[in-house]
């Protein structure tokens, strides 16, 4: 506890400087109304990164990175990419000539630049610092009985700055409730760092520290954050290596990576040496609080060396990646992994293909055809396959069914019925390729997804329906209804209804969120209330965004939640936030089991943060 306070105070003093402040209200508003499951901390990490390192619309690679913001629809991305490839862009609002909504442009505005690199020497240096604390009451059994080694407070510190136009550094430290700040013989708990150098002739960028790798469509490597939208699968492309200060404790790389550019060829070289958690299998829980849990902390060594070559033409891209990967978990020789990526545009058609192989023995493949139909309709057809012995440690979630060991066919259609109404339909069928006992047949299934969306200046209505049918199993149906109203510039509210029907049982939750901003825009208040009632399927609940907190839960049983948060700008550069979140069950006397047991049917989570943003 003392350590965390000293650390906080020390870094606070260090970072206390005059600056500007940026909140992501518009962006958050969009994301929350369109996507069901969001990892808030990861997404904000991405936005903060690109706020500090804006994407240049006159750079083709940067334009491809727009998808990583998760703030545009597939159709808008395609329009912008095509436009930027053919025109010099002087202002983002030039894109208004396309069929892209002004609101969409405003959303991506903080992350966009149109100036050339030469002009960037004049731009202001940005620094941000964040310190957050969280705790809960009543305390868990592990804390009360001192089975947890660390304090009962979650701490998160992050600092990122530009030393000059070429050098950027970042440092992040996070510990969960019950975890110690320092593990004996294993170092500091969840420490991330990165140093980035950019803009030296052909060496575009060199990164040291923690980073993500995303290749092609992500069937081999796709560790960068991507919103997993179960309704409409969308893919990132363009970025290969991106430094990361995310608190995630798996699916990341640490070492050195560089990006080189020569004419139309881009080359990425990367090497990583990390220690993964787990003993006989990987442990992705990210919680190491007791002696037994700590035995699994950073025990598996993973080494990787790779090269990625990409050649870009006006309407086509080709990329190849070769990676040597060794994990002590396999106790075998190193694996040689390859990825072949191709994308080709032809008028309103776009074809994308990625094939990955492991030692030329196991294969995975995805092929995609996108067709723009007129100005307002979009069709995509996708085929994917993955063999059961293919590595899947780092692939992204490109399928809504399982871990990816499957052969599947997916097609989706989106059309603007009127200026306000949009219809989306998606169909997915799959057959599992997971290794099975001889007599057990491969699992088969199909999924139908539909979305009806109405957007006006002041409100948004989303109705989503999902039907999932696995062979010889009961079907699952899900309905999600969202209504969002912007009452005025100060007040916004939304209501959400989730309803899942499984084995003729209805599982539901009803939620109301209210957001209020003061006239001076210095204070923000949010209130959320949710009642849930489930029989056999958990219900997803997400409280209003609170900076740095993962505010989402899967709720089971019967009960209600309540959250209130206040965020206030103390000065131009300094922001403080307080949040209280109450979870109340009516169907049980205590919450959780084992060390996580709380001897009460209610619990209160409390979070506080301080954030500085500086520009000079």
């Amino acid at each position, binding site marked *: 506890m003392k350590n965390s306070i000293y650390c906080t105070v020390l870094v606070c003093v260090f970072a206390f400087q005059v600056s500007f402040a940026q909140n992501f209200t518009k962006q958050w508003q969009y994301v929350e109304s369109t996507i069901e499951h969001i990892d808030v901390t990861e997404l904000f990490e991405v936005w903060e990164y690109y706020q500090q390192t804006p994407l240049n619309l006159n750079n083709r690679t940067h334009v491809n990175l727009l998808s990583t913001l998760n703030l545009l629809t597939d159709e808008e991305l395609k329009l912008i990419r095509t436009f930027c490839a053919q025109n010099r862009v002087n202002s983002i609002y030039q894109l208004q000539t396309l069929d892209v909504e002004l609101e969409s442009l405003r959303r991506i505005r903080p992350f966009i630049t149109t100036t050339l690199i030469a002009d960037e020497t004049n731009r202001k240096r940005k620094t941000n610092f964040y310190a957050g604390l969280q705790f809960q009451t009543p305390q868990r059994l592990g804390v009360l009985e001192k089975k947890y080694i660390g304090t009962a407070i979650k701490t998160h510190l992050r600092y990122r700055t530009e030393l000059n136009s070429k050098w950027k550094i970042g440092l992040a430290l996070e510990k969960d409730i019950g975890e110690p700040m320092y593990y004996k013989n294993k170092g500091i708990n969840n420490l991330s760092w990165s140093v980035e150098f950019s803009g030296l002739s052909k060496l575009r960028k060199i990164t040291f520290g923690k980073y993500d790798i995303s290749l092609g469509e992500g069937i081999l490597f796709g560790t960068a954050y991507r919103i997993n939208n179960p309704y409409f699968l969308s893919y990132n492309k363009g970025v290969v290596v991106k430094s990361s200060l995310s608190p995630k404790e798996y699916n990341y790389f640490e070492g050195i990576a560089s990006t080189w550019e020569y004419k139309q060829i881009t080359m990425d070289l990367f090497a990583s040496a990390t220690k993964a958690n787990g003993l006989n299998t990987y442990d992705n829980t990210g919680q190491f609080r007791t002696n037994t849990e700590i035995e699994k902390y950073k025990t598996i060594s993973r080494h990787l060396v790779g090269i990625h070559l990409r050649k870009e033409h006006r309407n086509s891209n080709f990329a190849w990646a070769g990676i040597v990967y060794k994990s002590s978990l396999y106790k075998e020789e190193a694996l040689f992994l390859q990825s072949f990526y191709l994308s080709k545009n032809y008028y309103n058609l776009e074809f994308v293909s990625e094939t990955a192989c492991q030692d030329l023995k196991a294969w995975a493949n995805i092929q995609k055809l996108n067709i723009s139909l007129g100005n307002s309709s979009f069709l995509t057809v996708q085929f994917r396959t993955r063999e059961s012995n293919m590595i899947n440690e780092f692939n992204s979630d490109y399928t809504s069914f399982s871990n990816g060991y499957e052969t599947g066919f997916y097609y989706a259609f989106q059309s603007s019925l009127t200026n306000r109404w949009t219809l989306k339909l998606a169909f997915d069928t799959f057959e599992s390729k997971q290794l099975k006992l001889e007599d057990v047949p491969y699992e088969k299934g199909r999924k139908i997804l539909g979305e009806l969306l109405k957007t006006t200046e002041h409100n948004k209505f989303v109705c989503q329906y999902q039907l999932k049918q696995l062979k010889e199993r009961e079907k699952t149906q899900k309905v999600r209804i969202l209504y969002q109203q912007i009452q005025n510039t100060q007040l916004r509210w939304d209501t959400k*209804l989730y309803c899942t029907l499984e084995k003729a049982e209805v599982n*539901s939750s009803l939620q*109301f969120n209210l957001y209020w901003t003061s006239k001076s825009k210095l204070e923000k208040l949010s209130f959320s209330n949710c009642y849930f009632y489930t029989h056999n399927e958990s219900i997803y609940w997400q409280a209003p965004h609170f900076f740095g907190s993962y505010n989402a839960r899967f709720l089971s049983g019967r009960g209600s939640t309540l959250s209130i948060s206040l965020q206030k700008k103390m000065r131009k550069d300094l922001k403080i936030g307080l949040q209280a979140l109450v979870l109340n069950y009516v169907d049980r006397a205590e919450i959780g089991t084992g060390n996580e047991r709380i001897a009460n049917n209610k619990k209160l989570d409390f979070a506080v943060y301080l954030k500085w943003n500086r520009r000079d």
Partner: protein
Amino acid sequence: MKLITLFMLCFSASIYAQNNYFFLDRYLNPSILYDLNTPTYYLNNTTLNQEIGLYERELGYVFRIKNNVYKTSLYQYGYNKFQETSFKISTAKKLSKSIELGVRLSYNYLNIYELENLSTVSFDLGFGIRRKRYILRLLLENPLNASYVENDLESQFIISSMYLWTNNLTSEIRFEESLQSGLNLLHRIKYCYKTRVSLILSQRVKPMEYGYGLGYKLKNFEFYSQYIKYSYTNALGICIVYTPKK
């Protein structure tokens, strides 16, 4: 903008002025009070099951002190061997032109003949937001889940959206998430003829229930009757509302 607001206020006020049917509503949102004429007296009585004499009745008074509206009522539910009585006081306040907040405090008393006398205090929070033709109301009923013994007092979250199609026709969809019975959906249509006669049709989805009501306005009195086909019984109710002239 002012014209629109004025129209909106007049429009929604007229809807309520000619229809006090909601006094028969079991889950009256306290934020609705702001729309009522004051003073108003009402009495409703619903027979839920004639054989065992199961009833529900309420006697209430709505009044205004300065700019705040208050309602007090005495509510009873049960039959001769099981009787639940609640004394309720509610108030509503307008936070802005389009936002209303209401709160209700209830003292609940349960008498089980020759067996048990139990009591508890609960509160409800109501919230109303209105647009030009649209009113959204939220009701947090007993959010702290106060109980006589355990989970025996209704605790639920209701979101109701009412659309005003014309001066005479309104429709309402209501989602109810109860900690006791889960999700339920109700939709209701109300039609008023020349501000004197009103007709209400309603349907509930889970379990499937339906009902209709008829209202008539005569000078300072309004008379309402309703029939509801519940899954377990048939209910018949009447309500008399008296609004003295100022």
